[in-house]
C-alpha cells in the first residue's frame, strides 16, 4: 500500500515536457533586484548603501526579526538604488537594486565546514540563518525558525518533502536526479541536529527514477537509516500536514505546528541549500525554476539567480511562442498569477508558467449542486461549499465556526467542482476580511 492522506485530487501532472530536461544555468540580469520580503515574517533590513560595492554571496540585508531571513547579493557589482520596486505579488516593496559588474567575484569570507558533526545544533542553526535559507518549495517560511522548536519538543521524524505534487513542476525532481548527494547531505545535517539515526524522504510514485536514484544514494549510508518512502501520486501530497500524515500517520491538529507531533519537514531544494550552506558556506543564491505552459518555446529546468528578472528567464530560454494572457509564478494549483514580467525571481520562485488566452479565464460559475465533491476532496475535512456560501455573505461567525483558518488553500475544492465555483478563492479573500474584522473589533 502506498502511503497517502485522505482527500485530494488527481490533476494531470503535466511533467513529461520537462522531466527529462537537464538543469541549465542562466546568466544573471544586468540589473538585479532583491525585494526585502522574500519570506514569511518581518521584512529584511538593508545593510548596504547606494554606491557600495558588493560581492556575490555577500549579505546585503539583515533579518528583520526572529521570524525573518537575511538576503544576499547573487552577483558582484554596485548598489544602484534602494527603493520600492514591484514584487511578484504585485505590491511595491523596498528592494535593493544591484548593477551586475559581470565579474562574479565571490565574497572571500564564505567558509564551508567539512566536518559538520563537530558543530552543535545552535551553531548549525546559526549557519542556516546566516545563509538566508527559507522553505524553497514555495512557502518561504524561514528554515532556522522551523529548526528551533522549543526545548520540550521531541523530534523523531525529519522528512524531506520530495512529493512535488504541483502539476508541471519538475525542479525538485531534477535536483534529485542531478545532485542527490547534496539533498541527502542536507538531510544528514538535519538528522545530526536532532540526533536521529532515521531520516525520511517522501516521493510520489510517478517519479520512479528519482526514487531509484535516491534509494541508491541512501543505501550508501551505513550508519544511518534513510528511508525513501513512495507516496501515492495525489495532490496535495506535498502539503506539509498531508506529508506528515502519509509518512508518520500523525495529524498536525488545528493551530499546531509540525514539531508538536515530532516532525520537521524540509523541501528538496531547502535540503540542498542547507548542504551548500554548511559544507560550502554558500548562502541562498540560486534556485531551480521550471518553465512551462503553452506559451513558452523551451519548457525546461533552469538554474536561476535570485534577483534575476523573470523577463530575462523567458528571453534567455527562447522566448514566448505566443503572447501569454496569464503568467504564473509557481505551479498552476497554488502559484501566483503575476501582473508583470518585470519583477525578480525570489527565493520561492519554483516555476514560471505562461498560458494563452484560452487558459487565462476560468469557466463561468453556476449554482452549487450540493454534490459534495469539494467535501470529499478537502484534505483538511472542511466544508468548502459552506465556507464559499459564508464567504460570499460576509458571514464571519459562520466562517469561524466552519474553521476557515484550517484551510491550507490547496484548491482541491475549486479543482473538483463541476459547477466551476471558486471556493478556495472566496476563502482566501474571506480570511483577510475576517482578520480585518477581528482587528476592528479589538
Amino acid at each position, binding site marked *: 500500500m502506498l502511503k497517502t492522506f485522505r482527500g485530494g485530487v488527481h490533476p494531470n501532472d503535466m511533467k513529461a515536457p520537462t522531466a527529462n530536461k537537464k538543469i541549465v544555468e542562466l546568466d544573471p540580469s544586468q540589473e538585479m533586484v532583491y525585494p526585502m520580503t522574500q519570506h514569511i515574517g518581518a521584512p529584511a533590513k538593508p545593510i548596504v548603501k547606494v554606491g557600495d560595492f558588493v560581492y556575490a554571496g555577500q549579505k546585503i540585508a539583515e533579518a528583520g526579526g526572529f521570524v525573518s531571513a537575511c538576503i544576499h547579493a547573487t552577483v558582484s557589482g554596485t548598489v544602484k538604488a534602494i527603493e520600492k520596486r514591484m514584487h511578484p505579488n504585485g505590491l511595491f516593496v523596498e528592494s535593493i537594486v544591484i548593477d551586475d559588474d559581470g565579474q562574479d567575484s565571490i565574497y572571500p569570507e564564505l567558509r564551508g565546514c567539512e566536518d559538520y558533526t563537530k558543530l552543535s545544533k545552535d551553531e548549525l542553526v546559526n549557519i542556516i540563518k546566516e545563509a538566508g535559507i527559507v522553505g524553497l518549495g514555495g512557502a518561504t517560511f524561514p528554515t532556522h525558525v522551523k529548526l528551533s522548536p522549543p526545548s520540550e519538543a521531541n523530534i523523531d521524524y525529519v522528512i524531506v518533502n520530495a512529493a512535488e505534487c504541483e502539476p508541471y513542476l519538475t525542479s525538485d525532481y531534477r535536483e534529485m536526479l542531478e545532485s542527490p548527494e547534496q539533498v541527502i547531505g542536507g538531510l544528514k545535517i538535519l538528522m545530526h541536529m536532532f540526533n536521529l539515526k532515521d531520516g525520511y524522504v517522501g516521493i510520489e510514485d510517478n517519479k520512479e527514477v528519482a526514487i531509484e536514484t535516491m534509494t541508491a544514494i541512501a543505501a550508501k549510508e551505513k550508519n544511518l537509516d534513510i528511508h525513501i518512502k513512495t507516496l501515492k501520486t495525489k495532490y496535495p501530497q506535498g502539503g506539509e500536514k498531508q506529508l506528515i500524515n502519509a509518512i508518520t500517520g500523525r495529524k498536525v491538529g488545528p493551530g499546531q505546528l509540525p514539531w508538536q507531533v515530532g516532525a520537521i519537514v524540509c523541501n528538496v531544494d531547502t535540503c540542498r541549500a542547507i548542504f551548500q550552506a554548511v559544507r560550502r558556506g554558500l548562502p541562498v543564491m540560486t534556485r531551480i525554476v521550471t518553465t512551462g505552459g503553452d506559451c513558452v518555446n523551451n519548457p525546461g529546468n533552469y538554474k536561476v539567480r535570485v534577483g534575476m528578472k523573470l523577463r530575462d528567464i523567458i528571453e534567455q530560454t527562447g522566448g514566448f511562442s505566443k503572447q501569454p494572457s496569464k503568467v504564473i509564478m509557481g505551479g498552476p494549483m497554488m*502559484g501566483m498569477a503575476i501582473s508583470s514580467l518585470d519583477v525578480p525571481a525570489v527565493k520561492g520562485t519554483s516555476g514560471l508558467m505562461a498560458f494563452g488566452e484560452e487558459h487565462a479565464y476560468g469557466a463561468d460559475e453556476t449554482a452549487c449542486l450540493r454534490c459534495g465533491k469539494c467535501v470529499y476532496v478537502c484534505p483538511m475535512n472542511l466544508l468548502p461549499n459552506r465556507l464559499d456560501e459564508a464567504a460570499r455573505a460576509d458571514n464571519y461567525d459562520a466562517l469561524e465556526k466552519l474553521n476557515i483558518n484550517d484551510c491550507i488553500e490547496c484548491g482541491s475544492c475549486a479543482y473538483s467542482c463541476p459547477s466551476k465555483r471558486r471556493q478556495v478563492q472566496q476563502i482566501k479573500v474571506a480570511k483577510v476580511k475576517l482578520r480585518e474584522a477581528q482587528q476592528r473589533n479589538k
Partner: protein
Amino acid sequence: MDNLLVVSHSPHITGNDTVRRTMLDVCIALIPALIAGTWVFGYRALVVTAVSVIACVLFEWLWGKILKKPASVGDLSAIVTGMLLAFNMPVTIPLWMVVIGAFFAIIIVKQFFGGIGHNFMNPALAARAFLLASWALAMTTWVAPHTSVPFWNTADVVTSATPLAAYAGTEGAVGEIPGYFDLFIGNVGGCIGETSVLAILIGGIYLIARRVIRIRIPLTYLLTVALGTWMFAGHDGLFTGDALYQVMAGGVMLGAFFMATDYTTTPYTPVGQIIFGIGCGVITVLIRVWGGYPEGCSYSILLMNIVTPLIDRITAPNRYGASKAKKRKEAQA
C-alpha cells in the same frame, strides 16, 4: 508593450467535471432501464418518456425565457428529471397528465425554489406524489408485462397487480407472485423504469464507476430494506420476510441508485449519506409493512429530502487532527 496579464487567485486549472457531463452520465445510466421498460411495456413507454422529457425541457426553457434568466437547458438536468418522472409512472398514464407532472416538477418544485441546486425535494418524485394524490386511479393502473396498451383510451386495459401488491395481498390485487428471475430482468408489472433490476444495476454501476455517485446511499438503503423486510414483512411472523423479493420488487432499486442519490436533495457529508440511506430504508419498510400502500420508496426519499439540511448540519466531518477530547472541550466552550 505587453498585453495586460490576467491576475487571479489560484488554482489556475480546474478538473474536467462539469454539470453537463454529470447529467449526461445520469442520462446514459438511465438508458438500460428505458430499454427494459420499452421491452416490457411496449412502445408507449418510449412515448411517455419522450413526452415527459420534452415537456420538462420546454418548461425549463420557458421559465428562463420569461424571467430573462441565463439559459439553463444546456445543463441537461431537465432531461434527467423528465426521464425519472416518466420512469415513475405506469405505462397507461394519459399523456396530458405527464405534461402536468412535468410542469409540477420543473416549475413548482425546481424553479420556484431557485432552479438547479436549490430545490429541497426531488422534482420527479414530488411530481409523482402530486399526480398520485390528484389522479390516484390513473397512477395505479398497472398492466401485466407485454400487454398491448391502446394509445389513447388507456383506462380500458386489463389491469394486473404489481409484484409488491401481490405479495402484500392487497385487496383487489389479482395476479401471481412472480419469480426472482422475472423480477431481476423486469418481466413484471409496475412503473415504466422500475421493473428491471438488471437494467438499473447496469446504470448504477456505470454511475459509481464514473464517480458520479457514491455507493453509500444505495448500499445502506438496500441493506436496510432487506433487513427490515426480512424481519417484519413475512406472513409467518418475525424473520420470515422475503428480503430478496422486497428489494427487487417495486421502486426501491430505481430509487436507491437514481433518486436517493440526487445531489441537491441528499446529504453531502459521508456520514450523512449513510444516515440518509438508512432513513430511507426504515421509512420504506414502515410504509410497506404497516402502511396501507404496498410501495413506499418515493415517500421515504421525499421525507428524507426534507431532513437533509439537518443531517448535513449534524454530520460535518471531524476537524482535521482535532482529538475527540478537544472537540468535546470546544463544544462546551
